[in-house]
């Protein structure tokens, strides 16, 4: 089974520029998550999709961050304009939907490391 795919793996931009990250979840997984992991911290959820609908975006800085999952499969996270404090690893994860314990696990992609100069 193929894992969660993310691209690019690394990105360096200057502040006030825009950047986009792409994620393709595990096939058949209905739920998709974007996390931000700042160096030395645990991941923090930015947004959760259930199919193509948003379940939780309470911690997404909506003035500069946006995300979409138009066809309920892959997703794009965008930052415009970027700030220095956005330097972090952006992790995408996916999970099946359901009540069984094995379906509650989130599977993570390799992440995109963003450096804002």
């Amino acid at each position, binding site marked *: 089974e193929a894992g969660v795919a993310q691209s690019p793996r690394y990105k360096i931009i200057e502040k006030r520029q825009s950047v986009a990250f792409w994620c393709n979840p595990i096939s058949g997984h209905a739920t998709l998550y974007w996390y931000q992991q700042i160096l*030395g911290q*645990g*991941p923090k959820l930015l947004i*959760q999709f259930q199919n193509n609908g948003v379940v939780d975006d309470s911690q997404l800085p909506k003035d500069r961050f946006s995300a979409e999952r138009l066809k309920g499969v892959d997703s794009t996270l965008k930052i415009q304009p970027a700030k220095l404090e956005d330097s972090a690893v952006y992790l995408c994860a996916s*999970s099946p939907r359901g009540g069984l314990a094995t379906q*509650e*696990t*989130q599977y993570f992609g*390799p*992440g995109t490391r963003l450096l804002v100069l």
Partner: protein
Amino acid sequence: AQTVTQSQPEMSVQEAETVTLSCTYDTSESNYYLFWYKQPPSRQMILVIRQEAYKQQNATENRFSVNFQKAAKSFSLKISDSQLGDTAMYFCAFRPRSNFGNEKLTFGTGTRLTIIP
């Protein structure tokens, strides 16, 4: 809101020895899941072990086992016969058991484990 605390920022142990990583959490939920994730230097987050709060039996997965103390809200990870490949950041994570789609993981700040040859 839930919080997860990992009080050991760094640990090191000799190869083949046993090491225990600590995690405590705070929640008002009665039904939830707890996880340990491993993040090697390549940064892909990998599930190590999972515990359902309604199960009294501690989860085990080969050399990895947990000590789940629900009343004390404690969830420690024991790694037996440690191997060089166990060197990584280890994150403890919590999520409530929800049938309504909000499946946000709350992570601790992590413990950096180094296995010494």
